[in-house]
């Protein structure tokens, strides 16, 4: 077959002007601007570049012209068929929407042996019947979960402390596996537990059923025990012992830990991180405290200003980077999520920071009493008497009822940052998300007010900070970032750089 080419003059640049492709920009510190196109590709350029670009003052043949053309900010008459390419990139970025709800959280009991300040829902009671999910409700919940069009679903057991209702877990697991297999779905199962009540038999069961564990570790003993009171004040000691035991039985990679940040934590970022290193964890999530439930009621104990959290985050991230440079692989999960969005063509399925928001679309919560909520935070609001985001009940609502009902439709009307005031023009939009439930909780309406939103300020500050780091042109730092993104070690990432 002959190779056919256009004549050579087809490939030469003409002197005609260029046209703009969709992009957004914002000013960064230090006289720089960040320009981001519709699919999240970016250019950090000197102040004034956006104005010159928009006013068509860029000179053909200049490096900056070539950069903007290559990154699809502009097109001229020698541009390749870029619309399809942009559409393909866009589809890739939003691939997480495909399949709809993937994460299904089952609250099998509200009972718990801990009384954490920031916990919204737990009940300290021995009464099994009141706060445990019944087998019948569990069955209906599995039925509803399997109606999700997603080919790959995750079932997460939560509480309270789910291991206190281990019989319910043992009822649900085989049922869910049978249904998933019959429907040709892949199924992952995770249990979120403080491990305090985990017997060897339970751990062997989890191992045999290939169930992962996510546990809570807030830092060294003086922080963990202060945050997570339980009879005997020995939560830390139990957690450490049980993490080791769970790792031995289930395998190292099957046990993950999550921390919650409180007022006390804010003073001790390095101690918390060092505790994770001491326990040989290779990822840590410096999470802000969510503004829900008892966390709001006990604000004096756990509440703090956003600026304090941002300082905590920056200090923590700097320490983590230092550890990585010294040879210990430790990823900060929030940065990793953002860097994946910034430095790769992919989006992430992280339900707390995406647009459309994850609520309902990517996560559903099945409460012990059969109520279905859009997110874990929604059911925490319900525990405070606010049922706005109760989407239905497994006994009375079908899958269709839930996703065509008013509560869900109201929620999705504020779920896309592409169409929210303030977000629609923001250059950080492709990396950020929408959180109507947070807006409702903190500002009284699902659309929210960006100039006074802590969600907005927190994410803008952290994303801009990451761009500051990226634009330092530090090749070792970029290798660390790519190691996080690729879930690999620093030594495995031979060379990397921003796209």
């Amino acid at each position, binding site marked *: *077959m*002959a*190779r*056919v*080419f*256009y004549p050579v003059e087809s490939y030469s640049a003409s002197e005609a002007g260029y*046209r*703009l*492709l*969709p*992009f*957004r*920009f*914002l*000013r960064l510190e230090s006289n720089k601007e960040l320009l981001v196109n*519709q699919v999240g590709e970016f250019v950090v350029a000197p102040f004034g570049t*956006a*104005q010159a670009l*928009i006013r068509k003052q860029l000179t053909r043949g200049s490096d900056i012209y070539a950069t903007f053309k290559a990154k699809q900010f502009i097109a001229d008459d020698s541009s*390749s*068929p870029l*619309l*399809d390419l*942009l*559409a*393909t990139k*866009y*589809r890739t970025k*939003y691939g997480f929407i495909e399949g709809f709800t993937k994460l299904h959280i089952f609250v099998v009991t509200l009972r718990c042996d801990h009384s954490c300040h920031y916990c919204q829902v737990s009940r300290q009671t021995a009464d099994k019947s009141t706060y445990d999910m019944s087998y019948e409700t569990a069955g209906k919940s599995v039925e509803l979960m399997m109606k999700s069009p997603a080919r790959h679903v995750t079932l997460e057991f939560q509480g309270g402390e789910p291991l206190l209702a281990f019989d319910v877990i043992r009822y649900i697991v085989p049922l869910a596996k049978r249904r998933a297999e019959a429907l040709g779905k892949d199924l992952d199962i995770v249990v979120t537990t403080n491990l305090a009540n985990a017997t060897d038999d339970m751990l062997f069961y989890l191992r045999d059923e290939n169930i992962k564990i996510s546990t809570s570790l807030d830092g060294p003993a003086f922080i963990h025990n202060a945050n997570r009171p339980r009879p005997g004040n020995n939560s830390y000691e139990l957690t450490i012992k049980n993490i080791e035991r769970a790792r031995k039985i289930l395998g190292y990679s099957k046990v993950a830990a999550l921390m919650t940040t409180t007022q006390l934590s804010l003073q001790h970022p390095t101690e918390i991180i060092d505790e994770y290193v001491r326990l040989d964890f290779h990822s840590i999530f410096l999470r802000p405290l969510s503004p829900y439930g008892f966390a709001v009621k006990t604000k004096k104990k756990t509440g703090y*200003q956003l600026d304090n959290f941002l300082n905590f985050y920056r200090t923590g991230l700097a320490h983590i980077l230092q550890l990585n440079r010294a040879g210990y692989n430790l990823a900060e999960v929030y940065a990793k999520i953002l860097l994946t969005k910034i430095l790769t063509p992919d989006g992430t399925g992280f339900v707390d920071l995406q647009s459309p928001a994850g609520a309902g679309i990517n996560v559903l919560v099945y409460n012990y009493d059969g109520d279905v909520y859009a997110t874990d935070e929604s059911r925490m609001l319900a525990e405070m008497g606010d049922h706005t985001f109760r989407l239905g009940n497994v006994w009375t609502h079908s899958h269709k009822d839930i996703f065509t009902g008013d509560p869900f439709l109201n929620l999705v009307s504020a779920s896309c940052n592409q169409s929210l*005031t*303030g977000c629609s*023009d923001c250059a950080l939009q492709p990396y950020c998300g929408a959180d109507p439930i947070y807006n409702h909780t903190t500002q009284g309406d699902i659309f929210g*007010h*960006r*100039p*006074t939103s802590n969600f907005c300020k927190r994410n803008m500050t952290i994303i801009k900070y990451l761009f500051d780091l990226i634009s330092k042109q530090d090749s070792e730092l970029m290798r660390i970032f790519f190691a996080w993104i690729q879930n690999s070690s620093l030594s495995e990432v031979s060379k990397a750089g921003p796209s």
Partner: protein
Amino acid sequence: MIGAAADGFKSEVVSNLSATIYLDPRIYSREAILKACYWFTNVAYIQIPESPDGRIAIQIRLRQTVPTLEEPQLERIEEFIGEFCNSLLDFELRRQVETETASLKQLILAKAFSESGVLEDEPPGTIADPVENRKPTSLVQIMKTFTSPKE
């Protein structure tokens, strides 16, 4: 007191806490003005009353009137005007991008999420390229999956 004047822009400082900005609507669009105002509603009360002389008048009154422990430094009205002015220019530029690319943006979205494939363009040139055809990751192969009729 006249604060500053430039093409299409004039500001009048009324007090330490308030000012009025006058804008020429031939230079600044209503959309850019409203968007710029929105981002300052955390620090100021902003009103845009009807103006008899054809200019757009923006009345600004800073929210914080006394220093607090959280905000010990009061915002200066002159600084506010400067920041507002920069922001206004940014939003005017953003509006230009939006105007020029709105239909393109819609087309990209439609293409991205269209399952039918009818919106896909044939790439220019020919795909009768045996070298490219042999590479599974070549653009030719990638484009083929989006340009071939729906199976």
